[in-house]
């Protein structure tokens, strides 16, 4: 028995799967491939681990979303919240790096190199918000 339209659920599930895989691939590229992406490098294990956690949250909800169950929305919502926390942190770090440059503590500030790709993945996830709001219309805290 579904809580909302299965067709919508499948779309959300596909989106969640793409987001989850994107996070996992990025984490694997940095950790296994030794690739340096933005502010992430091989030695920065916590940043890599965080990517895998977000990936797991998104991917674990794909099955329930495909069946139109609210439980799937729960994983999507939680994934988005954690992405906001992590992406927000990285944005603030970029701002802090810029302030350090203004204060003369660093010689240069390159905005493209200082942006963490997880922040871009968060931006990619934002279109989910209106879809989720539609599905959970009338729900209370």
């Amino acid at each position: 028995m579904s809580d909302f339209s299965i067709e919508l659920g499948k779309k959300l599930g596909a989106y969640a799967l793409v987001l989850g895989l994107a996070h996992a691939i990025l984490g694997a590229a940095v950790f296994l491939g030794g690739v340096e992406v933005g502010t992430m490098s091989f030695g920065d294990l916590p940043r890599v681990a965080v990517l895998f956690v977000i990936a797991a949250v998104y991917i674990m909800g794909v099955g329930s979303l495909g069946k139109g169950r609210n439980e799937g929305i729960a994983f999507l919502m939680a994934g988005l919240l954690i992405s906001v926390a992590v992406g927000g942190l990285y944005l603030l770090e970029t701002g802090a790096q810029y302030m350090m440059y203004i204060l003369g503590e660093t010689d240069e500030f390159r905005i493209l190199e200082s942006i963490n790709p997880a922040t871009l993945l968060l931006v990619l996830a934002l279109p989910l918000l209106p879809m989720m709001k539609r599905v959970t219309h009338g729900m209370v805290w």
Partner: protein
Amino acid sequence: MSEFSEDLSVVLAQKRYERISEIIGSTVKKDGGSVRTYTDMLDRVFLNKYLGIPIFLTLLWVMFQFSFTVSEPFVVLVEKLFEFLSHLVEQNVTDPYLTSFISTGVIGGLGSVLVFVPPIFALFLALSILEDSGYMARAAFVMDRFMYRLGLHGRSFIPLMIGFGCNVPAIMAARSLDNEKDRMITILVSPLMSCSARLPVYVLIAGAVFGSAQAGTAIFFIYALGIVLVVLAAQLFRKILFKGEQSPFVLELPTYAMPNAKSALLHMWMRGKMFLKKAGTIIFGTAIIVWFLSVHPWEATAGGQLIAESYIAWMGHALEPVFKPFGWDWMTAVALLFGIVAKEVVVGTYGVLLGVDEGTLGDSLVANGMFTPLTGLAFMAFVLIYVPCFAVLATIVRETNSLRWPAFEVIFQVALAFLVSGLIIGVGRMMGMS
């Protein structure tokens, strides 16, 4: 009968909920268990058997990373303020004794601690946001399953999380535990939770030896080490000192809520105020004592210039053999000695002894060969573990109504500090680090 009466309140609560379930079962029609509220939805994920702990660790890491890296520019602003004040004094005050007192004692000692107000307040803000959102209670629930296996009660989690701010209210919060053995274990392990007073030491050393890119991770490691030691100590105490069954964990979970900026800032201020009050009293007083001992005898030290001839150097050299195997010198020995008063004093002591601006204190520690990444990490671990500060010891006396437990705590933590730091140094040297 005595065993039943010990758990009476829990038995009554259980019977009450059983009756509620019976009534609901016969009167409420469910539609297959679908979630009805945002709280139900988020709890499916945050209390998930597999994801609960990884999510908790992720949010914990975000909290510490925020506290350290985002506050860094504000630390620099405070450093520049104290540098300006120090130059102002040196240019306008002619009396060398007064100049030394203000510039080295007050500004050097106290200033080197106050520069850490931004990361400390940032940590308190992050903790307030987590509490106000309702997530902290979920973290306690998630950790209960894990903590139960390791000898700690789930309800201990909240006092232990409070310990990230200050161990004093954490120990007092243990009063919420009904079972006396659970309460005693929580009191005895709480000082191993890394409080905000230790954060200036971590920020200083980690920033100096690991660089700003890796410092946040090094600090996270130390906090994680504290949590691991809490778990191990709790198991040890449960098996040896406080044998017996743990009481069940019953906790009502509040609904989730969007944290309110005003409320979070207020909570941050309430906690931060305690740090500022301590800075203005205990830390300031100790910084003056450290300055006095470092510039006297005045003639022998040439007005504080030859610190190696001072009373404090004599004290440090007397203690140095104890710490030499770890690669720490007499200044570190003195810093650790005065750190017993309050952990922030460790940084204040370095500020007085090295007599450099707050902005260059970390660089000075490395340039003088006082710390390498290995010895710096071992030092951070030592500061985490060794002797609780006077305020914590006084609280333990009050909460246990005994002098025996604080004495036990001192001996246990000093021994553990030497053991853990020794292990770090030993393993590091086996791996070829210096």
